[in-house]
């Protein structure tokens, strides 16, 4: 069962009569970088929303490390080990960079601290706060953001905001990291940097990554395996090179 970190079985959702995604079967091995591609409106983000509990699947189910997560609320799914970033960056804009990451650390068992302990300022509160701050700084150091830690998140340049969002997701200690169009709006130089960062995350955090991307060069250079979606269904699947040269995939992208 747990050969795969993530396994979806005939996963699907329909909104009224519209089948936004159906019969999606994806299997991701540990430490893989897996790509999810497809033309606009193919249902890629819908799949992400299904996997993170934003939508409840109307068909099929999915397993993380052998455990069925279908139907759990978003925060529980995150606790089980799926963390994500968003297509349009969603940071806590009016909070400092270090606090953004500390929110990610909030539900880790080692930083448990009851509301009463905080209200009455018991020693536990100070211990946890200090430990969280140290841990957050450590994460920021990895992403080269430590110098920005006391700036407000919305004052960061775009590339750093992306990095911060990834750092915050990693702070929740996931087994699987979902990245929704991480290279969107980046120049070639920043994209190159991002490829390095993603590889680094896989190696350093022993992470499995599922990402949505439009940039074919980016996908071809980074992903071990991909799934191509079109109109909510799987068009092609498997080894990146083979799947990308599939005539059906080329047809879907070029049209005809």
């Amino acid at each position, binding site marked *: 069962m747990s050969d795969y970190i993530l396994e979806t079985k005939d996963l699907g959702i329909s909104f009224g009569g519209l089948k936004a995604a159906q019969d999606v079967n994806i299997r991701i091995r540990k430490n893989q970088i897996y790509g999810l591609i497809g033309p606009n409106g193919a249902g890629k983000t819908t799949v992400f929303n299904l996997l993170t509990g934003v939508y409840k699947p109307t068909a099929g189910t999915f397993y993380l490390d052998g455990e069925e997560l279908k139907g759990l609320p978003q925060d529980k799914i*995150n606790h089980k080990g799926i963390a994500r970033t968003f297509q349009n960056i969603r940071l806590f804009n*009016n909070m400092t960079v270090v606090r953004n990451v*500390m929110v990610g650390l909030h539900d880790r068992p080692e930083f448990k601290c009851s509301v009463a302990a905080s209200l009455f300022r018991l020693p536990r509160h100070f211990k946890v706060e200090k430990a969280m701050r140290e841990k957050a700084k450590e994460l920021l150091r990895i992403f080269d953001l430590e110098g920005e830690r006391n700036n407000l998140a919305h004052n960061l340049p775009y590339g750093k905001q992306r990095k911060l969002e990834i750092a915050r997701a990693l702070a929740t200690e996931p087994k699987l990291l979902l990245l929704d169009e991480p290279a969107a709006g980046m120049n070639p130089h920043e994209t190159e940097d991002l490829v390095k960062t993603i590889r680094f995350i896989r190696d350093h955090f022993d992470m499995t990554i599922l990402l949505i991307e439009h940039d074919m060069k980016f996908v071809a250079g980074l992903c071990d395996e991909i799934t191509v979606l079109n109109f909510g269904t799987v068009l092609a699947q498997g080894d990146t090179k083979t799947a990308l040269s599939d005539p059906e995939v080329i047809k879907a992208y070029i049209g005809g």
Partner: protein
Amino acid sequence: MRMGKFKLNHYINYIVIGALTLSLTAVTLAGGRFDSSLLFLLEKIAISIVLAVSLSLVVGFLGELSLGHAGFMCVGAYLGGKVAALLVPALGNGPLTFLISLVVGGAVAAVCGIIIGIPALRLRGDYLAIVTLAFGEIVKSLFQNTSDETFGGALGLETPRYDKKYLFIFAFVIVLITLAAVQNFIRSKHGRAVTAIRDNEIAARATGINVTKYKLLTFTLSATFAGIAGVLYSFSNYTVQSAKFGYNYSIEILVMVVLGGMGSINGSIIAATLITFLNTKLATILTGDLAVLQNLLYAVILIIIVIYNNAPALKNFREKYNLQNLLRKLLRHKHDPDHVKDDEAKWDVVPTKIEMNEILSIDLTPQDKKGNTGNGGDK
């Protein structure tokens, strides 16, 4: 266990209010007598501060608009007053009766907070504002229609007469407790979770924050202190009349929070003090035929304060004569706007889900000159 240096601006409000309370207490104990109208004003200010600080928890930090804060206060006032009236024959009119009434009033208001917090999980912005508004009005009319024996009905509930000489001391101790509770909550991982929900609820959920838990918790905490303020009110006023707790009062509390700067506890304290003082003074100065001017003057002063606080054209002036900056200059404290300390992040620029700044600010800058105001005076 504590590390880092003592942060003065964290504790400045405790120090100021604590010192004030201590000195007034000392004078009282030494046999000094204050004018009864001054004592009444002090009590009123304390009540306003508790109300404003507790509401700022919901409006400023959770980012939800609540227009029913007076409703929670009403529940606390009636229940606390009733409990006190029942306890006085047994326990006498002492601190014990006072304490028990406070606990009961706060607890019942907390339950109401949970009840109102549940729809708050599904609604936001204008819709939640309407629900809370309705709650306040429902509570008000419920108490209005009780029988004379239970809660006094339309005549109001008579409450025991607590010794006025000492009541303001208790009131300010309660202010300090409220401050401690609210600030300790905000400056903890739990408060951080609440502000994360305000900044981006979708991201907060995806980051593993239990939004349901924290919204309920914030509403409950806020309602509890509103209830406690209600009990204080019932002791200060001798009678509780439901008409007092209409939406006008809820909005007055909201005005205190908005004027003080969304999410600024110290701002709420200052605004609550000023507005209460202003209201009371206007009511005593303008009597007779001039009484009609009370509301007009009050409104004019409010408009001036709001324009002063928000108008872009006054930005340079504001930064030059800003209390914080003046204090900083006095203490020779350097301020670097690009390097905000962790707990000094600018809360006052934070919008609620209803764009309060949009409603209140008036753009006085001519269109073609707009570019000049953007970066003025930052350094």
